[in-house]
């Protein structure tokens, strides 16, 4: 199966899969940058620079890539990517402003994306193939939610973002059956909030410092959660046309767990984080250096959390990450609690 790369969790991977491609998330690795230096400045984040580095070093083998305008850096990366590869490149203009008006707009955006995927694969996306794809991913999402309620497993999310959905479902079902969803560990609860973390050691350090992780990462919970309320009945009894299926998807992505790159009515993002933090003992901000959406939110969000009596710690990630330095800081933080 040919692969289509995507950068942002607001990409409707269901459409990609329904078109006969395997959607795979594009993530940087924890390596220094060399080739990308002549294409992107040093004040760009490690995710964007790191993905470009992987492209230039020939590591990425996909048929095409899909961008969304989540931030100014990704917005520009689309063109840089296109100029330095032979891949197909497409950008979905996911709205920045999320409200009732955005739905009509997003439906059109997704509809055109469906046409683009069809033109890439040369085959039609049918109601049946789209519903099957939506149901597969919803099963993954629901299993991952159960898993994360008990024990965050970042390697599993990474697999779910890059491997065939049927295989992921088999693995998750197996884990669930064998009772592997429960870690049985005790500890102080810490909310880990941030964007992308491709260094699983950091999460291990947090756990081995005696914390139980409550997750709010883009490479964690936010990959598989949405506020959409779905009836239990099978989708094909609820959605009767492609139009309805695309509309359902648009709604699902608009109701996706809020992200700092979007603008919501009534400060939905802040309220979400504050709510998640209610029962935790502390909060760790795990942020990518140079990531504006998160760093603009940080001071006011930190102040609100501290008003709630939560201790906070800020960790900035820039690849290659020095894990030992981070260990010292997290351990020191754990001791202060």
């Amino acid at each position, binding site marked *: 199966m040919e692969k289509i790369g995507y950068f942002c969790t607001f990409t409707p991977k269901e459409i990609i899969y329904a078109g006969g491609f395997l959607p795979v998330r594009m993530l940087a690795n924890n390596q220094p940058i060399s080739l990308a230096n*002549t*294409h*992107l*400045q040093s*004040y*760009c984040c490690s995710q964007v620079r790191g993905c470009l580095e992987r492209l230039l070093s020939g590591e990425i083998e996909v048929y095409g890539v899909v961008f969304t*305008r989540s*931030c*100014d*850096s990704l*917005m*520009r*990366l*689309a*063109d*840089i990517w296109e*100029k330095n590869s032979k891949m197909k490149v497409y*950008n979905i*203009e996911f*709205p*920045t*402003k999320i409200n009732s*008006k*955005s739905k009509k*707009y997003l439906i*059109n*955006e997704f509809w055109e994306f469906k046409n683009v995927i069809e033109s890439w694969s040369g085959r039609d996306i049918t109601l049946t193939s789209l519903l099957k794809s939506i149901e597969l991913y919803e099963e993954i999402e629901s299993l991952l939610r159960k898993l994360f309620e008990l024990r965050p497993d970042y390697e599993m999310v990474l697999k779910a973002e890059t491997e065939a959905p049927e295989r992921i479902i088999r693995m998750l079902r197996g884990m669930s059956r064998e009772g592997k969803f429960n870690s049985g560990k005790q500890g102080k609860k810490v909310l880990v909030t941030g964007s992308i973390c491709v260094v699983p050691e950091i999460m291990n350090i947090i756990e081995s410092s005696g914390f139980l992780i409550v997750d709010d990462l883009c490479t964690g919970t936010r990959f598989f959660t949405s506020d959409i309320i779905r009836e239990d009945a099978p989708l094909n009894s609820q959605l009767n046309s492609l139009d309805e299926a695309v509309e359902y998807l648009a709604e699902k992505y608009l109701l996706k767990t809020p992200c*700092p*790159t979007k*603008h919501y009515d009534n*400060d939905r993002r802040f309220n979400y984080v504050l709510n998640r933090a209610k029962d935790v003992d502390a909060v760790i901000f795990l942020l990518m*250096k*140079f990531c*504006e*959406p998160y*760093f*603009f*939110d*940080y*001071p*006011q969000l*930190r*102040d609100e959390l501290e008003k709630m009596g939560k201790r906070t710690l800020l960790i900035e990630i820039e690849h290659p990450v020095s894990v030992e330095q981070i260990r010292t800081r997290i351990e020191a933080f754990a001791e202060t609690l």
Partner: protein
Amino acid sequence: MGIKKLESTKKMREIMLEYYLQGRVTEFNGWVTSGAPVEFLYAMDIYPVYPENHSALIGASKLGPEFSKYSEERGFSQDLCSYARCDIGSVFAGTSPVGGLPKPSFLFACNNICNTVVKWYEVLSRIFKVPLFVLDIPFIRKEMKERYINYVESQLYDFISFLERIKGEKFDERRFREVLKLSVKGVEKYRDVLYSGRNKPSPLTCFDAFLNMAPIVCLRGTDKPVEFYEYMKDELKGRVKTGISAVDNERIRLLWDNIPVWYRLRWFAEFFAERNACMVADTYTNAWAGLLEIDKRDPIRSLAETYIKIYLNIGIDSMVDSINKLIDLYDVDGVVIHSNRSCKPYSFGQYEIQRLLDVPSVIIEADMTDSRSFSEAQIQNRLDAFIEQLEMVR
């Protein structure tokens, strides 16, 4: 060999002083981003406040690091846009070179220049507890799509309702059309001023253009820019007639890319003048020059289209086209590209753009208002080598 100041700059300072003073006595105002359609505000007699212009002013007063510090102390990262840091910093400081900005009645952010402004204005809306209207503009990487215009147009109607509600007055379309007319006229006059840089030798440098751009940004839609740029154009015409050039013995003509380095305007101006190089134009001010084409039959829809197509909201290929057109229009020998740590949408892609320009170019790294990111020796060496290279091909 010094720089030759324009009389017009004095007049501009008077106009802007009056503008800032007016802000102090105006009770109701909206804080707006530089790429937002301010015409709606002027049509409803709402005084617009421009934090970006204010930060540029802080930068030009060499106070960027000082005001940034006020926001950095509160946790705002030094990697964030320095316009935002200076603005938020001056809110915390409660002052600035013009005594601080008046408190906003509402906020209006348009992401056609960057998504940074959305986050920045969210911060402001939490500080001041006032409503924020975000005008969401899709990015045009390739071709314009009809549905993007529909989306923006429908938001403009929402914005009108928002203003009516918040101001408690009806939107007057006749007045709006008058404002648009003035806006278009102001832009035309401003374009004439910039185009005087096509003369050889040029009577102005882009540093003059930067210094004098505030009226077209802040007062667009009033008669002020129309009058002011007419005056400035006359002064430049006079220079051309009497053979006064901005730079003595102009031998090299250059184009500037990106927002200026505000705290070093004079340094750059002198640096190039001493080398008989004239920076005749720039991509920043010229972005305003092509701003408005209004179809009278449907002004709101055509305004939507205009504000979607602005320079920073287009893909790299279109940016290259625009720069190459400017290279041709102003007949320049080279391009100086400012890689601006504070402006990602303007700076990322510059390495690709550089490979596609019709003339040689050089990239220098700095920041528009934060002088801590300025390495004088390094920049001087790069620019000297570049000018030498241009001299050789002549």
